[in-house]
């Protein structure tokens, strides 16, 4: 029965007999290198198995090592991200501090260069209504501020104090529709009145038709209004329209970025002379207003 089974698997039997013969021959034959063929064949086969096994183990070890490295890198990445976030926050704080310092330096320089008595004040709020372009300062009448005092910044005129309280003051910006200042063109000395429009531009009015105006001309305060000291920059002429020989619309772009103000100077005394810090020396006194 077993013989019959074997005969039914002739192919396997043939293969087995052939391999057995080959092994038998290999055991007796010596290669040119003097090594028995069987030994060389077995060694070669085993060496290949060892190579594959070693390669597989090395590969697996590499994969595992890479996985561990990835985990470590992932942890380090998380830590670095956290540190980066902290540093970004710190950097922003530093930048804010640097910006504040720069603004304060500019204000300090303006204060030093200005021949008038001034007091610095921080902007603590902007206008509550879009119809009125105002802002709020952190100093008031207790520090010597009074109505109609000019408010200036390093870049130019900001506005005037319209409502001082003991600890704060409301400032009407120069672009408010009710604001006005006497101005003149720096290049030609042509005079007029700069009025706010409620938008982000001002209009130069009451300018003589014969005046020499050009786009880009700088307009400064003339001091004729009794509020703003002479010589502070109001802005630059942005566009000029003429109608029937007269200037119909002359628009001025403010020199001060009114939406980015942090610290300003309030001119407490517009008369030139020895400078005093009104915030300290004359906290309750009203400024001398030139008529």
């Amino acid at each position: 029965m077993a013989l019959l089974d074997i005969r039914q698997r002739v192919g396997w039997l043939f293969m087995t007999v052939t391999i057995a013969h080959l092994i038998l021959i290999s055991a007796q034959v010596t290669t040119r290198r003097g090594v028995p063929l069987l030994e060389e064949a077995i060694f070669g086969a085993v060496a290949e198995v060892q190579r594959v096994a070693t390669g597989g183990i090395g590969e697996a070890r590499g994969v595992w090592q890479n996985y561990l490295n990835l985990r470590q890198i992932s942890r380090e990445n998380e830590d670095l991200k956290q540190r980066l976030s902290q540093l970004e926050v710190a950097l922003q704080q530093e930048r804010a501090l640097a910006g504040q310092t720069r603004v304060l330096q500019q204000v300090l320089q303006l204060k030093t260069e200005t021949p008038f008595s001034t007091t610095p004040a921080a902007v603590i709020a902007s206008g509550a209504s879009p119809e009125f372009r105002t802002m709020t300062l952190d100093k008031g009448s207790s520090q010597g501020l009074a109505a109609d005092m000019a408010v200036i910044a390093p870049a130019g005129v900001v506005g005037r104090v319209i409502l001082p309280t003991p600890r704060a003051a409301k400032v009407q910006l120069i672009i408010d529709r009710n604001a006005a200042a006497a101005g003149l063109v720096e290049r030609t000395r042509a005079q007029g009145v700069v009025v706010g429009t409620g938008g982000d531009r001002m209009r130069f009015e009451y300018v003589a038709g014969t005046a020499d105006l050009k786009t880009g001309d700088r307009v400064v305060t003339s001091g004729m209004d009794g509020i703003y000291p002479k010589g502070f920059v109001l802005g630059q002429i942005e566009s000029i329209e003429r109608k029937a020989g007269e200037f119909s619309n002359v628009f001025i772009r403010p020199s001060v970025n009114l939406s980015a103000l942090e610290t300003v100077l309030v001119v407490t005394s517009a008369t030139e002379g020895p400078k005093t810090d009104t915030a300290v020396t004359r906290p309750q006194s009203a400024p001398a207003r030139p008529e």
Partner: protein
Amino acid sequence: MRAAGALIAIALALALQTTLARFVVGGSTPIDLVLVAVVYVALTSGAASGMLAGSVAGLIQDALASDIIGIGGLAKSIVGFFVGAIGQQFIVTAAIPRLFVFMAATAVHALLFQGLYAGLGLRTFSSPWAAVVTQALGNTVVGMVAFATVESLPGALERRRMSRRPKV
């Protein structure tokens, strides 16, 4: 019974091969009686039997004559397997097909045997084609005679038995 017959055929072939070789000039015979026996067993018993017969006979022949045991066994087992497979797939009972089978088996055996030796760098055979053709012819003649003898044996025995029966 068939396995015993195969073993007897192989043993007889080996015995004749080793004894006949002495009477031939040069000490070698162009006839491989063991191969003839393997082909006979393969044609009568099938691929598995032919292969096993070839393997055993070849190994014994290698052990007796060759320096590498296994080359003759491998060659004869392959020949036995394929001759048995051909015998099972085709009708090779007529004289002409058998003649071709013997010749082809001898050629394939010589090719494998000499090819293995040459391939392994163990030995080279001078003028192999002439030797192979001579051996193929010799093997074919002996094989055809053997088949004819074996197949006519039962009839001859019967005739002899009939002739010895007492006449009434």
